[in-house]
């Protein structure tokens, strides 16, 4: 192993040791139990995630009035979907706002400050979202960054970049793909990826 790669490995081991020490200390002091941590992780890994966002988008596709309400007041519109798990407005799910892609406009969500992300709806953020280079470049040259993601946006289409913060967390309603008439909401939801809801991709074609 070269020196170049040794350093990060060492850091990884130290970070892992720091977390273990922290967790052990808190458990010993009775602040948390390992079950508390598992329960929270389980919620984020199974109940909150991009599957929720996908269902919200699918509903917006089949119900234009719902889509309008979603854009005007996202938390209220999301609350209408009573079959979603509870806690959609919990940590990082509050203050959500939706923007819709459409004729001549493409939306891209970033967070230049600290990688704010609506976890309950979109799941845990992907690696690149938290990368400082992505955050600064996406603000400066969104078209070039989108191209690296494999998405070429026509010059005639405006690219709007939305910077999430503790006050507002944005998500994108992608355009409904052509040829999806007659598909069920469940089938439509399967076409919606987290990348599409962040605007670095479009919804999959049918």
């Amino acid at each position, binding site marked *: 192993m070269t020196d170049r790669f040794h350093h990060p490995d060492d850091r990884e081991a130290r*970070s892992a040791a720091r977390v273990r020490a922290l967790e052990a*200390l808190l458990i010993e002091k009775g602040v948390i139990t390992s079950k508390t941590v598992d329960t929270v992780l389980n919620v984020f890994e199974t109940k909150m995630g991009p599957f929720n966002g996908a269902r919200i988008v699918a509903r917006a596709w089949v119900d234009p009035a719902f889509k309008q309400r979603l854009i005007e007041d996202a938390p209220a519109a999301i609350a209408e979907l009573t079959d979603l798990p509870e806690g959609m407005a919990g940590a990082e799910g509050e203050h959500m706002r939706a923007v819709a892609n459409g004729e001549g406009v493409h939306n891209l969500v970033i967070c230049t400050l600290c990688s704010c992300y609506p976890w309950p709806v979109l799941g845990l953020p992907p690696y690149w979202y938290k990368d*400082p280079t992505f955050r600064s470049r996406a603000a400066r040259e969104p078209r070039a960054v989108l191209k690296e993601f494999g998405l070429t946006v026509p010059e005639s289409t405006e690219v709007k970049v939305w910077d999430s913060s503790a006050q507002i967390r944005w998500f994108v309603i992608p355009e409904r793909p052509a040829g999806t008439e007659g598909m069920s909401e469940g089938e439509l939801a399967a076409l919606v990826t987290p990348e599409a809801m962040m605007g670095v991709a479009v919804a999959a074609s049918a």
Partner: protein
Amino acid sequence: MLTHFEHFALTSMAGAEDSPPRANGTLCFAEEWERSAFGVALALAREGHFEWEDFRRNLIAAIGDWERTQAPDGPSWNYYEQWLSALEATILQSGLATPDELSARLATATATADTRSA
């Protein structure tokens, strides 16, 4: 030569990273310690040991410090290292542990890690 961002974009999109947990194709954590750090912060906030916004402020500060002292496209960026720093700061601020308790534990833990990696 790929930039750091392109590397992450490519590996996360192409799914080439080593077996991290995924949700609907999205890479969540690269290492188990990242998952633990995330879980501990969430669990503490959920149990009311501190306000989530206090943790957020510390996270913003940790990332800001890192960006002021490092090249933003350098290879040393790790989001969950900042997360961990913010978590330690928030635990101290909220009195869940004293600086002495924490530093004693960390000294032992990192010494063990150093021995292992040496």
